[in-house]
């Protein structure tokens, strides 16, 4: 189990049940579709049965004439396209003239009941002219007169091409004792979250809309919606209710959200829309199908000498987060080990399939599999222990990587050492009987993207804290709690700083009308960024309370030390940070000679105290209202070359997995018996929650490793259900051992880093490496289905027979 080092905190590092978990378990939590608006219309979406076609005609008159139908929308009703990235706004809310994937919306109906809406869909007459589709990356690279997106002015279906090279690759491979190279293939996979997409829109009599939506990014949705609907942002309020899992699959603005808002505005009625599971699969946005060839040079003395990869990622019909994914397929290989000579080439292609986008471990998961398997191969070839080798190669603290990432805290070496000890690695690796194996792999991930998607100089996170006359603390944050527990984390920050019990902190979050801007729950940024903002807001509030206490005690208020951060630590609109105005600097110390606990504010030195409520009342005398804000913005980071911004983060997490498997050589089944995890998330703020993330990542990784795969036939989704798209059941979950692993990140809030995504990637190659240890085969294709295991075994046996 995750344990936090004892640093004398009351709430930080202690297992805290997530806010709202009781309501969820009791079935009382309201998810988007549970909200009951007054007399809403139900929206159903007509989707294209063809992956590639022109819309020759579209007749909605019969549908509109149906009793109970209040409105029909088509592509002609939306002028602006949208996309989560400002640099690829290529998606229409409803297809106009052309459909680019099976399942793309071609019309939408709002009706008094769902039944009427469904009947109306059948009455819409669409004439399609089928066109030749593109269904794989290789074909998409070929020149064509009819690319999916002619507006890009390219003669093929290339969406984004990135090549970056650092150091001297030729020299790197020359310096190597062994060079290993393989081609790897990865199926596209879906997030498979529990709650399907849903949106409800409430409209008031002045034309303002409140959009309740299952979204990870209320702020980006807010901006996209204003642009698509061509109304001011202040007429739109986005609220995220309880959310049943995102994993990146709810981090784009979606067509159904635009459609719902448009209907509400046009018809002056409340509306609701929710997806069936099929529709979730049709809109997908999952992990890209990937075909990559990687070459790794390894020296016995120096470790990795060079790493190069050429990658095709199949983006599907639209951009989504794809440009970021393209970069992440390369840059995230800059850890956890030093790679002195590094080159990557990634092409993202448009194809006539549902679009791919961000998914847990975004872009880093597939190349991580390849690099960790190749590293294992290199170790095997030179006869070095793969765990020890990794241990020696992990970045040192305060390192600059080859592509100029600033790595600060690294706590993985202790964690991996402990994992090796607990699993008896030395006694097992290479020594287990045929069919039993043990494998290791490590990973690395960002603690939040340092740069915003929409370039601006505003803080990445802002938190507002108020204290009411009764002493109740309310915390306002735009961060979206998507089940990962960010509300709880924010409250922990405030509770610790303000010396309050958790019950006294109420969190209002993810509501664009009442909460300050937060960029959203993606790239594992919330703990680091919103966490720091919450901590800072609470520190400012603490100062108000302590000053009020001093006044009551007739004492001098404490003198606060100015932070030691360099002047340009934060880029505050081009100005130097103003320390006099309460600029806090990175991760400020808040010791002030006072202890706030049990409802008292006590001076340590003078053994004098006032009650918390007396101080609140006194402070209210000055202010009338107690309110502070805190912000976070990443420091200036990174190099000055093109694309240097990709993957920049104020800090990075590190993970190691040791996995034990049993491989059945007759059936090819891989059974994961045990997964031992060391994850350096800095200070584990809430060990309960960190455990949950680790167990969840193992389960999700197991799915991608062993069974998950989107199956397409000429662009048609063949398995859009949880019966045919296989995710593991509880039976497949292995025994999990979580070893203590931490660091103290100098800039993370209370030393914390991310714990939600980085854990996922290394479990998958650790399984593959354990399979090698068990039966001597290298699997290079995901999922590692039993039939692929048997084919690889057969090939290996043939080879053995020859030699």
């Amino acid at each position: 189990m995750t344990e936090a080092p004892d640093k004398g905190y009351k709430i930080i590092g202690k297992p805290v049940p997530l806010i709202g978990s009781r309501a969820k378990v009791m079935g009382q939590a309201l998810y988007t579709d549970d909200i009951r608006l007054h007399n809403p219309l139900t929206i159903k979406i007509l989707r294209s049965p063809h992956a590639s076609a022109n819309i020759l005609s579209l007749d909605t008159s019969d549908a509109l004439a149906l009793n109970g139908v209040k409105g029909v929308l088509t592509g002609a009703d939306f002028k602006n396209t949208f996309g989560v990235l400002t640099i690829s706004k290529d998606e229409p809310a409803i297809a106009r003239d052309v459909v680019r994937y099976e399942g793309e919306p071609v019309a939408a109906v709002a009706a008094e009941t769902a039944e009427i809406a469904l009947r109306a869909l059948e009455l819409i007459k669409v004439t399609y002219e089928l066109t030749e589709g593109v269904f794989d990356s290789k074909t998409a690279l070929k020149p064509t007169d009819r690319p999916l997106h002619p507006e890009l002015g390219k003669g093929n279906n290339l969406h984004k091409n990135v090549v970056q090279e650092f150091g001297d690759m030729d020299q790197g491979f020359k310096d190597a004792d062994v060079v290993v190279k393989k081609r790897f293939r990865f199926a596209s996979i879906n997030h498979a979250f529990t709650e399907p997409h849903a949106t409800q829109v409430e409209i008031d009599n002045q034309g303002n809309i409140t959009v309740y939506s299952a979204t990870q990014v209320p702020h980006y949705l807010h901006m996209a919606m204003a642009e698509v609907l061509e109304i001011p942002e202040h007429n739109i309020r986005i609220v995220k209710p309880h959310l049943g899992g995102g994993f990146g699959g709810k981090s784009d603005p979606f067509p159904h959200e635009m459609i719902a808002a448009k209907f509400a505005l046009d018809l002056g009625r409340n509306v609701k829309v929710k997806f069936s599971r099929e529709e979730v699969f049709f809109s997908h946005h999952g992990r890209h199908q990937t075909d990559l060839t990687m070459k790794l040079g390894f020296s016995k003395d120096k470790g990795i000498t060079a790493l190069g990869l050429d990658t095709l990622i199949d983006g599907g019909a639209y951009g989504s987060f794809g440009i970021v994914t393209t970069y992440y397929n390369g840059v995230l290989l800059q850890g956890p080990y030093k790679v002195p000579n590094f080159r990557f080439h990634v092409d993202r292609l448009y194809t006539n399939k549902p679009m791919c986008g961000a998914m847990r471990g975004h872009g880093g998961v597939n190349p991580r599999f390849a690099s960790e398997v190749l590293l294992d191969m290199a170790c095997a070839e030179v006869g070095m222990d793969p765990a020890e080798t990794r241990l020696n190669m992990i970045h040192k603290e305060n390192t600059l990587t080859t592509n100029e990432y600033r790595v600060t805290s690294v706590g993985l070496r202790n964690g991996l050492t402990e994992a090796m000890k607990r699993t008896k690695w030395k006694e097992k690796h290479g020594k287990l009987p045929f069919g039993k194996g043990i494998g290791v792999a490590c990973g690395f991930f960002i603690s939040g993207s340092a740069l915003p998607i929409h370039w601006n100089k505003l803080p990445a996170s802002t938190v507002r804290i108020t204290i009411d006359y009764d002493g109740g603390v309310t915390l306002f944050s735009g961060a979206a709690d998507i089940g990962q527990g960010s509300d709880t984390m924010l409250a922990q920050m405030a509770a610790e700083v303000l010396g309050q019990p958790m019950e006294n902190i109420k969190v209002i979050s993810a509501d664009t009308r009442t909460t300050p801007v937060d960029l959203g729950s993606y790239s594992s940024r919330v703990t680091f960024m919103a966490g720091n903002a919450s901590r800072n807001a609470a520190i400012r509030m603490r100062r108000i309370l302590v000053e009020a206490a001093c006044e009551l005690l007739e004492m001098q208020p404490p003198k606060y030390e100015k932070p030691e951060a360099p002047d340009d630590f934060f880029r505050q609109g081009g100005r130097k940070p103003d320390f006099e105005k309460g600029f806090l600097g990175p991760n400020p110390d808040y010791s002030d000679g006072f202890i706030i606990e049990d409802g008292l504010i006590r001076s340590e030195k003078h053994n004098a105290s006032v009650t918390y409520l007396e101080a609140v009342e006194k402070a209210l005398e000055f202010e009338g209202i107690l309110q502070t804000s805190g912000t976070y913005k990443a420091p200036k980071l990174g190099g000055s070359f093109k694309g240097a911004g990709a993957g920049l983060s104020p800090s990075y997490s590190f993970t190691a997995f040791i996995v034990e498997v049993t491989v059945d050589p007759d059936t090819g089944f891989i059974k994961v018996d045990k997964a031992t995890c060391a994850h350096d998330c800095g200070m584990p703020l809430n060990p309960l929650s960190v455990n949950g993330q680790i167990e969840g990542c193992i389960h999700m990784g197991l799915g991608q490793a062993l069974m998950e795969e989107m199956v397409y036939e000429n662009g048609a989704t063949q398995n859009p259900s949880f019966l045919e798209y296989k995710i593991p059941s509880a039976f497949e979950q292995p025994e999990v051992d979580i070893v203590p692993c931490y660091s103290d990140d100098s800039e993370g809030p209370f030393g914390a880093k991310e714990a939600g995504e980085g854990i996922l990637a290394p479990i998958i190659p650790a399984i593959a490496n354990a399979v090698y240890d068990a039966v001597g085969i290298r699997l290079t294709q995901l999922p590692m289905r039993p039939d692929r295991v048997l084919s690889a075994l057969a090939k290996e046996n043939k080879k053995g027979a020859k030699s």
Partner: protein
Amino acid sequence: MSLVSENFDFVRPTSLEQLNELVKECQEKNQKFAFAAGGTDVIPKLKTGSFKINKFISLNGLQDLNNVILKDNKIIIGALTTLCDLANHGLIKKYLPALAHAAHKVASPQIRNRATIGGNIMVDNRCVYINQSSLNRECHEPCYKADGDVCHIVKSAKRGDEILCQARFVSDTAPLLLLLGAKITIAGANGSRKINLDELYLIDGIDSRSLKSNEVITTIEVEIPENTAMHYEKLAIRNALDFPSLGVAIRITGNDLSVALTGLNTRPGVFRANADSYDNFDDMVTDISAQASDSVKTYSQDFFPRGYRKDMIPVFIRRGVDSILKEQQ
């Protein structure tokens, strides 16, 4: 779609007489109807729109059919016995433990709580092109099972062929019942009749059951076998939820070995051998495995590729036999 979009009437007769009346009424009015007990097979088809009805006739009112009794060395299973009850029933566990195990291997606890044994031996044959979203069915030409003119699995199939539709048989419980020589009692407008279970299963995937549309299965009868051990081995990527990609039932009675396969073709395959015709037991197992493999043609209509499923037939037979022999020691 997560919604059953077509309206239909729901009725729940409480006696076979009432049921016959309802059926007669439907036939007179030319209404399409479906029988369902747990509904776990019918409801998903109504949701995807691959199946449309005017009347849903629930069998759950026929409470007499929800029991398991022992009579004259026979186990008589009421068709409405849920798979959960069957898996946990004292008589089944005592006399037919392999059947309890097979019932337990179906789907999930939630489904086993509703789904019945009658439904499981009747479960419709499945194919990736028909048990599919309506959108996906729209983008393919309608297949024979959808009243169309093509089989997407065997493109050369044409009307008049012995097998027009390759939708595969997926019952987990039927293979063991076949090896036990189970008899089923069928009630219809003209009273009841009793047939061997193997007569229920037809060769084509479209109408794969010999039951007439106005008939229901009332009981399944199995003679308690003497000197017998049985086993069911299921191929699925997960330990829950899935239909069998391959299911192998084994029966060993004295020198007799019999094997029944599910999950592969349009109907279950049954193979028999007697050790007296072989030099040793092992040769018999090898031979029956070869027989089974040779007679089966697998198709790409499952998570596992066709070749793999075929390759697993001998492996699973060997495992089943080994597991029985190990228990007997």
